[in-house]
């Protein structure tokens, strides 16, 4: 009898597990201490991506914060970058197993984690007053604000070797035609004019994404119409320019010869040692240059991608990511998380980041100043912000970004597919993303 009973209950237990595993039901704040620990400090975790510079900055911040008070003990945890990291963040938020505090992108990726369902609003927290007004819309959904900025803003444009420019007597181009003229002069001098690195596919997108300031200048309602499904890359004369530029650089042979096999680091190296002159890139990559050759860092400058009209010349700007608190963080942990976020929105935190990582543009927190000795690239980027010659990248104005853009542009830049056809293909990709997001009018 006894064995039968045991058998039966074992089966019941086994069967009972099935619905559990199927519905994926969450166990709430798994692994949190709920303040019942013997020491007085509340322990919380802070999830960041595992890029070396992010991790370095996060650890320095946490160390300083932990030393500054006794109530909260923060530990850093890491996650992968890129698409894999996106999936991990979404899964953890959905299952209620997210860390107490986490850093993640602002803008369109932020919208995709369903902030209204998964995050705690921070609109009324006093430290939100320290946050720059330009950043607030990037971490807002449904009238509530959800995050504080983490790190510096940066620009998408061209990193260039200033020494080559000086030697050849060139000036920073204000139009695309000037850019091509410069490139031809550089080619005549036997130097690769435009560096492309298609082994890291994402880098192929710069001539399109970094050109958005010019698109918005020519067609101010593009972002809105694009989100509504009315403006298309293939048909908007300003928007297709980026595709055409990518094709033009390949057709005129202005690329480095190993464009197909080069990676970002190879590109930065070419720029530093003067075998390549101009690299369409994000200014944040100056951190990579810094780690390769700190002594040559001031040879490299930055200019925004020029369009057709010199009067509207300006920078396409990217915002830093945000730090958010998920709904699964409650009680003492929430108080502790709040305390940590308040710390992140202070000039002290900016200074710590400046010491440990390379700032790549301005901080978006009140009272934060860049020191005098930042790299030339950072100074060049900040100048666009100071002169108000910048506008946000498309990903901060519209939630739709087609995932295949990088492969499509690799094809354009390698001469596999012409610009017009590529833009049409990208429009289909965009349509797919819009449908997935459940937007109206698609």
């Amino acid at each position: 009898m006894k064995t039968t009973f045991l058998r039966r209950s074992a089966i019941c237990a086994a069967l009972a597990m099935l619905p559990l595993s199927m519905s994926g039901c969450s166990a709430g704040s798994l692994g949190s201490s709920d303040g019942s620990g013997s020491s007085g400090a509340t322990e919380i975790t802070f999830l960041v991506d595992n890029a070396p510079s992010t991790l370095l900055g996060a650890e320095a911040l946490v160390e300083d914060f932990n030393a500054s008070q006794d109530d909260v003990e923060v530990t850093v945890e890491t996650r992968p970058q890129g698409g894999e990291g996106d999936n991990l963040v979404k899964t953890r938020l959905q299952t209620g197993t997210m860390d107490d505090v986490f850093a993640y992108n602002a803008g369109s990726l932020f919208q995709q984690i369903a902030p209204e369902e998964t995050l705690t609003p921070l609109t009324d927290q006093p430290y939100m007053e320290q946050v720059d007004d330009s950043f607030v819309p990037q971490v807002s959904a449904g009238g509530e604000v959800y995050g504080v900025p983490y790190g510096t803003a940066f620009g998408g444009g061209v990193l260039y070797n200033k020494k080559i420019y000086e030697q050849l007597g060139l000036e920073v181009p204000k139009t695309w035609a000037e850019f091509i003229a410069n490139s031809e002069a550089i080619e005549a001098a036997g130097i690769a004019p435009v560096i492309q690195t298609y082994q890291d596919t994402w880098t192929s997108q710069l001539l399109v994404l970094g050109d958005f300031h010019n698109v918005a200048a020519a067609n101010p309602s593009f972002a809105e119409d694009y989100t509504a499904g009315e403006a298309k890359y293939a048909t908007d004369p300003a928007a297709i320019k980026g595709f055409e530029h990518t094709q033009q650089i390949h057709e005129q042979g202005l690329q480095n010869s190993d464009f197909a096999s080069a990676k970002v680091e190879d590109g930065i190296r070419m720029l530093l040692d003067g075998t390549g002159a101009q690299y369409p890139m994000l200014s944040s990559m100056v951190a990579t240059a810094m780690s390769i050759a700190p002594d040559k860092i001031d040879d490299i400058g930055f200019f925004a991608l020029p369009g057709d009209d010199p009067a509207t010349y300006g920078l396409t700007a990217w915002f830093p990511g945000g730090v958010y608190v998920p709904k699964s963080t409650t009680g003492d942990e929430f108080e502790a998380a709040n305390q940590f976020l308040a710390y992140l929105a202070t000039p002290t935190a900016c200074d710590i980041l400046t010491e440990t990582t390379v700032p790549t543009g301005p901080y978006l927190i009140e009272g934060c100043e860049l020191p005098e000795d930042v790299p030339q690239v950072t100074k060049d980027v900040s100048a666009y912000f100071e002169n108000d010659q910048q506008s946000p990248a498309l990903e901060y104005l519209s939630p739709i970004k087609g995932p295949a853009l990088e492969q499509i542009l690799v094809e354009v830049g390698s001469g596999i597919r012409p610009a017009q056809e590529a833009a049409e293909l990208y429009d289909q990709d965009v349509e797919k993303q819009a449908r997935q997001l459940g937007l109206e009018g698609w």
Partner: protein
Amino acid sequence: MATTLRPATSTSTAGPARGRGKRHSPYPGWFYLPAAVVYGVLFLVPTFASFYFALTRWTIFDSEFIGLANFVQFFQEPALVKGFTNTFVYAVVTSGAKVVLGLGLGMLLTSQIVGRGYLRAVVFFPVLVSSVGVGITFQVLMHPSRGAINSALGVFGIDGPGWLVDPQLALLSVALVDVWKGVGLATLIYMAGIVSIPKEYYEAAKVDGAGSWTLFRNVIFPLSWPATSTVITLSLIGGLRSFDLIWAMTRGGPGFTSDVIASVIYKQYQAGFYGLSTAGNVILFLAVTALVLPLTRFLARKEVEL
């Protein structure tokens, strides 16, 4: 849910029934349960759930039923046609090369040659290495300017191609590595097949005055047919759902030129199109089944006819 419960309960009721037939079996049907639960939870539930989720727009946070729209979308996918062609080319090239090389190596390694044991180990060794490791190693070796392969070719004055970055070559380069990695298993199967051919056939053939070609043509090849059909089936299925090596080496690039169905599906998943990628998987499942079922039938019939 019901689908999962059924195997568990049916095995439990089958227990006593079976006891009647086989009196002396000391093991009750309950012993099936752990395996059934594992199989059900890890295979049956996800499989049937995927048939449902393929019909939804699924964002992890919620899912909305949209009928067959995902399938329509998937078939409109521009990379899909390329993916299907590439998958087919890849599967045929790799399984063909494995049959030819595997048979050759199998005959070589079953004959009396010096260092046979060592050579057998060498041929089989790549099978033991992880695909991703092999992929990354060959990515370094095949680098157009810094890789060992082109450096070696350079010594002979040959300007090696951009193995993985040339749109014409990328897929074939990966297929080449796949063959290098997989030929050991094919050889092993052939060796087993050749060794199991009774000695009498060889003797009879020799008495009839058969040369080595006739011996191969009329004895070894037909009598090792079970090995050939196993190798074809295994490597064709492997080729059709190949993903790890391609992803590690080219990520489907440059552009979309070396995309296969599995990498097209994976990219949809990575981009957050969970419903769409599930639909893609259902299609891949059906395509593989539709291709492999008749093939195994055909190969098996051929075996009987002999």
